[in-house]
């Protein structure tokens, strides 16, 4: 077991988290623990904090372990996973993030209540929290696997330590704490990734040219570009674009970052930093994954552990520690935001909305903190059984596709509770049928991902019901409700 590596990384995370928490507590003793201050950083975050937090929130296990593994089979085309998330950041900065910040909302389901009433808010709250919890479990597994693969520790121990670090990442000052830690970690992440890539490149007998020659010689030249075979682009890349870009822009754990920004202009400016910061990360992980495949001594280990093993064996301890710290930072930031997002839904949309309308900000913050701890503990327990969550990620994201439709059609077109209910019921029903029955095989369409099916059902039912109920209330942005709300704020 590489004890030095493990201790160095854990000590780094503890010093950074402790330092930022202490500084924030001193800087703003009064607001750090209050409700709006905890969940949304008092809606005061500047560009320098919003941008790295956006970039790191949708940059987690799948960007590291997932791309290492995908690059093994499809080479550069695997990068489309990272690029799909970069596009999702742009969509949030241009649309949903700005709108929800303008309306001074705390959660995405709150917007649904403004447009379609309380019942839909509660329904979507439960489903969205479940979807986010699935992602949280994936990140918890990732923490365990990354620590295990680079230090030789057990995955269960890694998940527990990762879970504790993840809770510490968010529990002291909530959104503000996550944001400021992310600022430091984003710098560390890129410095260590660039240094590690240079070091690996220099350490190869023929540099990265040798890696290229390996793929050309083994008739895998199509892996040397991100524009791989067209069938792979249509199934993998396009499928990911649909699943990610029609779900992440309405997912609480990501939009919460935008809602915490100082103003709408801050979100617009953050786009210019967050998109490249997020999108370029995958270049390094793709290249490292392909390099490991080209070296026989690591290739023999298989796609799951070849790259982490190569990094530990080829890099000096100080650089391997830096790189492991940066990988952990990427996963911890997503862990913290998924915990905070799901906990905020619980405290705002369930506890405050259903059971204690008069809850103060401090009481809500307390419930959020308790929910964070409970969610993290359950995620660590579930992750210890290593369920195949990665395989379920498309299914998890597909649940939010009809929510995206409701947000856009409800804001700009028309608002009918019945149409909304029918659309969301049909889309969620299709997602269940496509996953748990033999319908895909019966239709000879098993290769179609859930995202395509849910999108098709959402569009058909959503469009037709909106046409049938077109005389219902106008889109929220065209209504008197919106004008009245803006006049009061």
């Amino acid at each position, binding site marked *: 077991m590489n004890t030095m590596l493990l201790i160095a990384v854990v000590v780094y995370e503890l010093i950074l988290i402790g330092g930022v928490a202490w500084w924030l507590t001193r800087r703003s003793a009064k607001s750090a623990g209050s409700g709006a201050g905890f969940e949304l950083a008092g809606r005061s975050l500047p560009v320098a904090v919003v941008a790295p937090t956006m970039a790191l929130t949708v940059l987690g296990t799948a960007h590291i372990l997932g791309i290492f593994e995908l690059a093994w089979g499809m080479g550069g085309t695997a*990068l489309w996973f*990272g690029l799909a998330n*970069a596009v999702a950041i742009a969509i949030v900065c241009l649309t949903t993030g700005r709108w929800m910040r303008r309306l001074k909302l705390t959660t995405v389901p709150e917007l649904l209540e403004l447009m379609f009433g309380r019942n839909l808010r509660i329904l979507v709250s439960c489903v969205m929290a479940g979807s986010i919890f699935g992602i949280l479990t994936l990140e918890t597994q990732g923490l365990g696997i990354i620590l295990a693969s680079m230090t030789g520790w057990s995955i269960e121990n890694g998940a527990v330590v990762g879970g504790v670090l993840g809770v510490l990442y968010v529990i002291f000052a909530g959104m503000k704490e996550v944001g400021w830690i992310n600022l430091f970690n984003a710098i560390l992440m890129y410095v260590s990734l660039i240094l590690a890539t240079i070091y690996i490149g220099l350490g190869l007998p023929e540099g*990265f040219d040798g890696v*290229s020659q390996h793929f*050309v010689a083994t008739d895998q*030249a199509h892996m040397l570009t*991100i524009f791989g075979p067209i069938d792979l682009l249509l199934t993998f890349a396009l499928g990911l674009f649909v699943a990610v870009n029609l779900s992440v822009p309405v997912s609480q754990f990501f939009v919460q970052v935008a809602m915490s920004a100082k103003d709408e202009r801050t979100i617009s400016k953050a786009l210019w930093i967050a*998109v490249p910061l997020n999108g370029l990360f995958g270049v390094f992980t793709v290249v490292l994954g*392909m390099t490991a495949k080209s070296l026989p001594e690591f290739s023999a280990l298989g796609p799951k552990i070849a790259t982490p093993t190569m990094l530990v064996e080829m890099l000096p301890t100080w650089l391997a520690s830096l790189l492991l710290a940066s990988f952990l930072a990427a996963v911890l930031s997503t862990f913290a935001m998924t915990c905070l997002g799901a906990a905020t839904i619980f405290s705002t949309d369930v506890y405050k909305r259903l059971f204690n309308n008069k809850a103060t900000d401090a009481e809500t913050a307390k419930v959020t903190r308790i929910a964070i701890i409970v969610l993290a503990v359950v995620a660590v327990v579930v992750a210890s059984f290593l369920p195949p969550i990665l395989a379920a990620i498309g299914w998890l994201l597909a649940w939010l596709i009809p929510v995206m439709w409701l947000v856009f059609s409800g804001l700009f077109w028309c608002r009918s509770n019945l149409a909304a209910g029918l659309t969301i019921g049909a889309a969620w029903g299709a997602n269940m049928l496509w996953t748990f029955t033999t319908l895909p095989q019966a239709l000879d369409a098993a290769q179609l991902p859930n995202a395509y099916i849910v999108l098709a059902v959402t569009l058909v039912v959503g469009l037709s019901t909106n046409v049938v109920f077109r005389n219902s209330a106008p889109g929220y942005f065209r209504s008197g409700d919106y004008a009245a709300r803006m006049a009061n704020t």
Partner: protein
Amino acid sequence: MQPEWLTPEEKVMFWTILIEAVCVIALVLVISFIIQKYIIKDS
């Protein structure tokens, strides 16, 4: 299915993938700029 300008002899993995990624990200930023300037009218 390869872009013709990427003949095997010219492929240098790291730079090819980096440049392609930068081009895609630049395209996303240009589209975002156009939306911000002409649709949202933010700047």
